[in-house]
């Protein structure tokens, strides 16, 4: 097959006109939700309710309802936290880093990915609070002046987490909102409903599509992209510090920051692909979220998957090379000990199956990619499980070893977090444009002035 690599594939397929793009994206907002929508919402809402009930009971009786025990102080809730923070990373990477790198294909997926970032960080943010023994005292984690002269401990990575995650959430939210302003204005101009018009008017902040507005907007967007870019690296670096700063074999590893960031992007892209294959179908966005886009994301998944695989191997090498018995034991124990099943789920899902993306056919096949990204999602959850639980369950003193089994409540809360995530995603699809109208318009064919009527790079 001959591919002309000198010419970039068009970001928007189907030669859509600007008004068609607008029409396509805005349509879900103009129509009433259908039966399918409510079915989807009720499923995710039920999961959310299950999680809320499990959480409520846990608050009432204590977190002893979970499987956590003496050697394994952190388990599923922390696994969920790291998992959801990781999911968030794709959005920021797509919207900020790819923006700075002038990757036009990002426009079709950036909005959705960013929204998923925010929802994932909301899901993640719940866990550090609820996993504590006394969540009602979570305020102690904030450095506020008080008459007891009590201060927080700035040497604790958990405190860094508080700042890293809250900064990340704030910046992502602002970035997302700035990107939405021109679209709010477009929607305001389109809508006939008075209520909607008022709401869109408020949120569009008086946007008039003037050149001046666009100039400020572009500047602000770029600055925020620049601001968000280091966060992609910093947040998961700091999350990895929760582990790396400790002295526990299996946690105390310098490879963790890059390993966690790669893993986060890996899992985040997998989640974005998981959701987008549905969204593009349901909302007829195949021309805006094209197979080319999905293929590009699959390439990123392949690349980051191998980075993660490299990290798995390097951990073993360093454990052997360090000569530290406890360290060596932890890694051997991961692969062959009581949690070997979790380890091999992780390796096969994260390293082995994504290798199929070497083949163009698989990269462009919706069913294949769907199966693989689901496996990656599972694998990345298990990666965090393996890191957290297997390191803790057999550490220095064999006398204190134990085995951890998650309980119904652990799993209920995990499902609840998925319920929360998808409820937010589903509500998002009917209330905000899932694709950035203004950005897609800007990369559509003929949108930019050219000398020869075609692309110029």
């Amino acid at each position: 097959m001959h591919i002309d690599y000198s010419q970039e594939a068009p970001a928007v397929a189907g030669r859509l006109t600007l008004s068609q793009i607008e029409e396509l994206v805005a349509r879900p907002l103009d129509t009433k939700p259908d039966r399918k929508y409510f079915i989807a919402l009720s499923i995710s809402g039920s999961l959310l309710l299950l999680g809320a009930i499990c959480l409520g009971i846990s608050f009432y009786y204590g977190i002893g309802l979970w499987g956590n025990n003496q050697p394994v102080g952190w388990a599923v809730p922390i696994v969920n936290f790291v998992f959801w923070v990781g999911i968030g990373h794709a959005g920021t990477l797509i919207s900020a880093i790819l923006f700075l790198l002038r990757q036009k294909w990002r426009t079709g997926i950036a909005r959705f990915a960013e929204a998923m970032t925010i929802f994932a960080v909301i899901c993640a943010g719940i866990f550090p609070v609820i996993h504590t023994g006394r969540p009602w005292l979570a305020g102690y984690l904030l450095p506020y002046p008080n008459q007891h002269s009590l201060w927080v401990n700035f040497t604790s990575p958990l405190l860094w987490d508080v700042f890293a995650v809250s900064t990340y959430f704030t910046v992502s939210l602002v970035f997302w909102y700035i990107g939405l302003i021109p679209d709010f204005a477009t929607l305001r101009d389109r809508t006939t409903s008075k209520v909607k018009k008022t709401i869109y008017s408020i949120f569009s902040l008086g946007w008039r599509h003037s050149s001046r507005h666009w100039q400020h907007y572009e500047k602000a967007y770029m600055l925020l992209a620049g601001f968000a870019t280091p966060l992609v690296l910093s947040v998961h670096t700091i999350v990895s510090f929760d582990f790396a700063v400790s002295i526990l074999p299996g946690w105390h590893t310098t490879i963790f920051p890059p390993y966690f960031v790669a893993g986060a992007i890996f899992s985040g892209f997998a989640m974005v692909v998981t959701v987008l294959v549905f969204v593009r179908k349901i909302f007829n966005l195949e021309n805006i979220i094209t197979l080319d886009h999905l293929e590009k994301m699959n390439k990123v998944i392949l690349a980051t998957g191998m980075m993660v695989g490299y990290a798995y191997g390097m951990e073993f090498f360093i454990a052997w090379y360090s000569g530290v018995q406890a360290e060596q034991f932890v890694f051997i124990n991961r692969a062959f000990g009581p949690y070997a099943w979790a380890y091999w789920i992780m390796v096969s899902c994260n390293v082995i199956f994504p290798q199929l993306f070497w083949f163009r056919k698989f990269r462009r096949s919706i069913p294949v990619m769907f199966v693989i990204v689901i496996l990656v999602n599972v694998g990345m959850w298990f990666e965090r499980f393996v890191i957290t639980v297997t390191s803790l369950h057999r550490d220095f003193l064999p006398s204190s070893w134990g085995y951890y089994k998650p309980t119904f409540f652990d799993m209920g809360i995990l499902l609840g977090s998925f319920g929360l995530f998808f409820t937010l995603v589903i509500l998002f699809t009917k209330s905000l444009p899932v694709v950035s109208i203004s950005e897609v318009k800007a990369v559509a064919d003929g949108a930019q002035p050219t000398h020869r009527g075609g692309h110029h790079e």
Partner: protein
Amino acid sequence: MSDYREENNLQNNPDPNYWRSFEELYKNEKTLEARNHEFADGVTDDFNPNESLSGISRRKFLALLGASAAFAGVACSDYRDKGEIVPYNVKPEEIILGKPNFYASTCTACPNSCGILIKTREGRPIKVDGNPEHPVNRGKICAKGQANILNLYDPERIQQPLKKNSAGFDNIDWKKADSDIIAALSMAGSKEISIVTHTISSPTFLKVLEDFKSKFPSTKVYSYELFNNSNRNSAWIKSYGSGNFPLIKWNEAKVIVALDSDFLGVEGNRIENSRLFAESRDVNSKSFNRLYVIESSMTLTGINADYRMRIRPELQFAFVMSLMNELNKKGVISTSLASGFSLSDFVEKNNLDKEKVNYLINDLIAYKGKSIIHAGDLLPENVHIAVNILNDLLGNKNLYRNDSSPVNLINLASLDEIKELVGKISNGQIAAVIHLDCNPVYHFPSDLNYKNMLGKVPIVVTLTERMNETAQFSNYILPVNHNFESWGDAKNRTGVISLQQPVISPLHNTRQKEAILLTWISSSPETFSETLYHDYLMKHWETDIYPSLKSKIEFKQLWFGALHDGFLLTNESAQNVGNINLSSLDLNQASIDTKGITLILRESYQVGDGRFANNGWLQELPHPVSRITWDNYAAISHNTAKSLNVENDDLVEVSVGGRKLTLPVFIQAGNADDTITIELGYGREFSGIVASGVGFNANQLLSSKPDFSNWVYSNASITKAAGKYSLASTQEHHAFDNPRTQDLHLKRHIIQEGTVSLYEKKPDFIQEHRPKELESVYTPFQYNEMKWGMAIDLNKCLGCGDCIVACNVENNVPVVGKDQVLKSREMQWLRIDRYYSGSPDDPRVSVQPMLCQHCDQAPCENVCPVVATTHSPDGLNQMVYNRCVGTRYCSNNCPYKVRRFNFFNFRDHFRDGYQESSLLTLMFNPEVTVRSRGVMEKCTFCVQRIEEARSEAARKGVPIKGTDVKTACQEACPTNAIHFGDINGKDSEFYKYRTHELGYYVLEELNVRPNVTYIAKLRNIHTEEL
């Protein structure tokens, strides 16, 4: 102005006082008239209060408003009335608020009658320690004695007399109960009144029983113990003519050979045995005894052996005789008794380690007269006789103590006598059965059918603290005082009588058992008074004991002195061991068929014979060998398990002589093949929510016609049953065959051990492996003044677990229950780690107490986001409970995993809030915070004791010294393995241990700089290498 007046028709005489308008000033009539009407005409025309408003008047409305505001205010406030704290109007004598009082008394938890010191706060007993001056236990007390305090406050104690009716029990008053029983007793006539009781160690109680007998002449006393030394007793009667076998100078023995004898675990006074044993395992004096253990089940004594061999109990006789023959052959002793035996044949046949047996023979020769062979209580008479003969021939009689010998106030009833009792019951020859604080329905062999027999007795009276199997089948249940509410005395040694005094008045409507009997003797329920037995006791001492002392001081003085001290020393001489009767040995019993499986029933380390089954602290105390809590089990060797095709937790059916029991299996390393060991004391019924349903009642396997010994049954069988049962262990079971996990404690230098000969050659051999101290990028904190530290001598630590219970009591540690132990959430601040190395047949066992190491560079401290765990300038790692949010990061980062997290409010979680009973809250140590749910906790080095010592030092104006503080574990350790003090106090005893050449830290290479030093264990074996 005039115009205005005229226009408004005003009069010209202004009122000088006050006015609101000119009309008023000039007294316009209309205006003045209008002032009398609040509303102008017509304004209220449409307003009819009765129609447009509800009938509530304004007053009523305001009253209701006020009331609802008050109600709302009350409802919304979270004020809970927790009662008031008021000062004493009249201060009780002796009590100073906030200061503990100590009273000397005697422990009645077992027949050993150790001296105790009870700590009370504001009149509440809160802690029990050994009486430091008591000559027998010297300031130490076992786990049961420590945990006895929980029995005092047990909310399930029976609180008033009960009388059986058709459906259950009625509450009755004492007068009614007493008069009913007195009537029944006086009708007995020639029919027997049977009194069933445990060992009687109180001379005054014996006197009460004698009085009882003279009042009711048909009385017969049956004293029994489920675990007793009757075999040893009868052997001594045959060998030496007296059943009062001597005590042993364990501390002077160079070689100790224990044959199925758990003298460090459950036999004899183990507190005293342990102390004497550990005295000669001392690194400072470099004197080491050598312990050979030849046993069938892995015992506490077995894990401390230098050489251990496993044989079935039936073979012990042949083993002793073979030793005798070998020694005879070598010309060390001269006897013809053992001519039929050959050691080499025995070794060959039973697959013993030839080398070990040779060492044993050579040691018995080399240390002739300085060695002791000791047979266990469960072995039959002939083994004891053989052992007596061998000790006698080797001249080991030197090691029999001559300062004091045991005293039996009353002989235990033999199995035949008990059978006779049951026979009399079935023939209707018994008028009444009185159970004095004992539980024969549970303890007697089930084939006696004692439970059903009780139905044939006209009146059955049970005196007990709490409901049990026997009380359930009694006509009257009379609640008795707890140990700490009672008067008494005890004598089970020559030369010392202990006194027992109450430290709290009875919590419930209970009486002490002696007073109940005295009331019956008097024939009048009115006789009872609070001081009835107290007066009797004093009178008995004055008239019977005092004259025999020939004391020069007057009685009152002597009495109060003895009461203060808790005991009285007398110059009674010990009984001498006579000459041995060599013909006492019956060789015909020697041949015993050892085919099939042998069942061995042993006493539980934790709950004794079941008396302490309702004590959560003891149920949760891990078994010293298997680390299992809350259950008993069938312990079998791994070979036996393999041949049965069973794994841990599989249910098996054990049957012997038609008696059957299904219980889970536990593969115990070091157990003899083809033996099953089951501990008794579990499977209690009707005995409280803690005890009921815990474990399995293996007493069912006891027979009234044992052919070998009461506790050992040959020809038992074991078959796999369907199903599994989870045993809750505090430590993962060890896989011997997994190279990844094998010997990790040695590879990681957690346990560092050597041998005595290596130590003699190279005293600093431990220091060679120690990593160099690493440089820190920070300037470390300089501890220039006080710095607390601990040193644990692993040579002395036997792994008994007394320290764990002491810590629980001192620090208000909750009981979490089996379900939580299964989830590895036990809360004990101090644990004993047990490691195996070597093969499952012949494991080398190492124990190590593990508690917070109070590291200088504590990894827990820097990861806490809220600074809830901090370091004190005197070197303590502290927990700030109020600040803790419960992230558990500290626990994750603790390499020793000694932190404990309150996953629940465990007091509320365990058995439906059993521990939140208002009675049990009286037990708390008021100096230690009771931790709530969601909070991390851990060992504090008993900071409350440190602070108490500090304020005491400040009061005296002197600096605090390291010796001012003793931690609870240190106080409880029977072998003094734990030392605590000031690391900077260079002239202290503790400093010697802190800087000992055998000292090391666990996980030193992490550079966390722990403050607990472990003194490496030395094994006294013949080689330098382990």
